[in-house]
């Protein structure tokens, strides 16, 4: 007896096939089909600060910072290093800019770039001893490092100890403040996406795939990993340096667990390995957390539940889901068997 079953079929839309990898597009509609996904969100992001009230502008800033941290997480995760300690990168940048500002009196336009590079460098150096660890072992160390540095600062009263450093320069005006982070966000987003499709990016991804084969191909994977840590560390350090100048303060909270966990959650909810997913995740989770402030005591519970719902309902991530819906349609077909 033949049993008829229904199966869901996914088929590329005709317009996808027509506009895929073809550079001579034939119609305005196809041009829009290709151009809208990258251009529309960019425009939206650039226009938002003009229309948002001050409070939500600050939320946007915070979301952008977490998006950057999430991308930095996503980048080293693609190289096979699952970090539970983006706070390390963040804190390194935050304290570096704080020290450069407070002790060396550097202007803001010097302290932020310097902190970005020095912070990235220090982060990579700190993780260098454990660069050979794989999987969970590497993750554990990244989790512990920022917490340990926090305690060291507390115990030795380094850089103001528990008081931190106050009176750090702020940005000249709120427009510089908000557009600086948005421009860096977009540069990182498209930069990372481009990097990962380059040959250099292929090699990095291959390291997480099969590191023995990469080594046997004559590539020093530890050097590659160190470079990746420097890049991710710099992005994270920029976040720390930037927010330090926004808050005009740096202290132990720069190494707080929030800066480790929220970026990870953003990347997972948004969709790993795409960078755009990281941005999307942060742009949803951070405002959601703010919007829930009105709820009161149950805020964290509701936040946690919504996280679970996202992950259970869309395990592939929001970005992958939207991408699929955009390019493909689904239909039910009857199959025998």
């Amino acid at each position, binding site marked *: 007896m033949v049993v008829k079953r229904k199966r869901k079929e996914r088929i590329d839309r005709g317009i996808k096939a027509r506009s895929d990898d073809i550079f001579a597009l034939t119609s305005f509609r196809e041009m829009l089909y290709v151009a809208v996904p990258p251009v529309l969100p960019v425009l939206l992001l650039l226009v938002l600060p003009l229309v948002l009230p001050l409070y939500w502008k600050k939320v946007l800033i915070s979301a952008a910072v977490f998006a950057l941290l999430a991308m930095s997480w996503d980048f080293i995760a693609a190289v096979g290093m699952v970090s539970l300690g983006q706070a390390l990168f963040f804190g390194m940048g935050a304290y570096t800019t704080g020290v450069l500002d407070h002790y060396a009196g550097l202007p803001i336009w010097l302290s932020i770039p310097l902190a970005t590079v020095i912070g990235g460098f220090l982060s990579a150096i700190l993780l260098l001893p454990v660069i050979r660890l794989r999987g969970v072992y590497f993750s554990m160390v990244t989790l512990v490092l920022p917490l340990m540095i926090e305690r060291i600062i507390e115990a030795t009263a380094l850089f103001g100890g528990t008081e931190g450093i106050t009176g750090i320069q702020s940005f000249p005006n709120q427009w510089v403040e908000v557009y600086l982070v948005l421009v860096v966000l977009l540069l990182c987003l498209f930069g990372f996406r481009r990097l990962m499709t380059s*040959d*250099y990016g*292929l*090699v990095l*991804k*291959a390291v997480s*795939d*099969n590191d*023995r*084969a*990469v*080594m*046997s*191909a*004559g*590539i*020093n*994977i530890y050097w590659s990993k160190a470079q990746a840590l420097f890049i991710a560390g710099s992005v994270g350090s920029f976040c720390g340096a930037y927010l330090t100048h926004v808050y005009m303060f740096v202290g132990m909270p720069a190494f707080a667990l929030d800066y480790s966990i929220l970026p990870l959650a953003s990347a997972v909810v948004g969709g790993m390995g795409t960078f755009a997913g990281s941005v999307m995740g942060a742009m949803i989770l951070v405002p959601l957390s703010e919007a829930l402030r009105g709820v009161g005591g149950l805020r964290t519970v509701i936040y946690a539940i919504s996280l679970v719902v996202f992950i259970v309902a869309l395990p592939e991530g929001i970005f992958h889901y939207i991408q699929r819906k955009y390019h493909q349609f689904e239909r039910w077909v009857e199959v025998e068997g």
Partner: protein
Amino acid sequence: MVETSQTESPQPLLRVKELSKSFGGVRAVVAVSFDLYPGELLGVIGPNGSGKTTLVNLITGLVKPDAGLVEYQGRNITGWMPYRVARLGIARTFQMVRPFAALPAFKNLIIPLFSPRVRSLSGGKYGDRDSVAKDLLEEVGFERDSSVTYKPAGSLPHGYLKRLELAKCLALRPDLIILDELFSGLSIAELAGILPIIEKLLVGGTTIIMIEHRLRELFRIANRVVVLNYGRVIAQGKPADVMEQPDVKEAYLGTE
């Protein structure tokens, strides 16, 4: 003058001396010694678990030896990191083929083509890696511009994966290639396709070590074989002579 000195006392390309490695209580490789001369094809055979793959891992640096010496072109490379060994010109295939599955077949070759060895051999420039990769695939028997070249490596049939492994080696432009059971799982037709490639490499002067279970095909091309059993060398010499030795017969066929 140079020629006579080469024929009289040729310098071995690779010298393995008293190499040993234990994993816990298991003595995987025990005091293995052999010399390998330029242009030779050396077969390494032995029953399953006799330490063949461990020997390859010891030479290429994936496993550090407990004792012994590996010399390549007169240089002591014992315990070097795998990437440094590879940069000297020792390339290897893996017994378990694990391609970079998500990448198109030809993009798999980008990884070896990205190594500093390739850059220094081509005069400080990498060149167009994509086209070099496609040329290499053609060399190992991927039809030129067939769709297979562009398919994700994870979806390739076994025969193509083995060729891809070989191409990954060739990308490094090696002087010594170590093939770990390249022939396993290949059909007669696929073997007929891949044997000429190896013969061509030999003619081109590449030195090859082959770990192999398919003795008939190996013996057709091997100059010498080393037989391992329980991590020890029980015989070495010309293929035909080696198989006549009672120890070897026993290891392969069991006692009578």
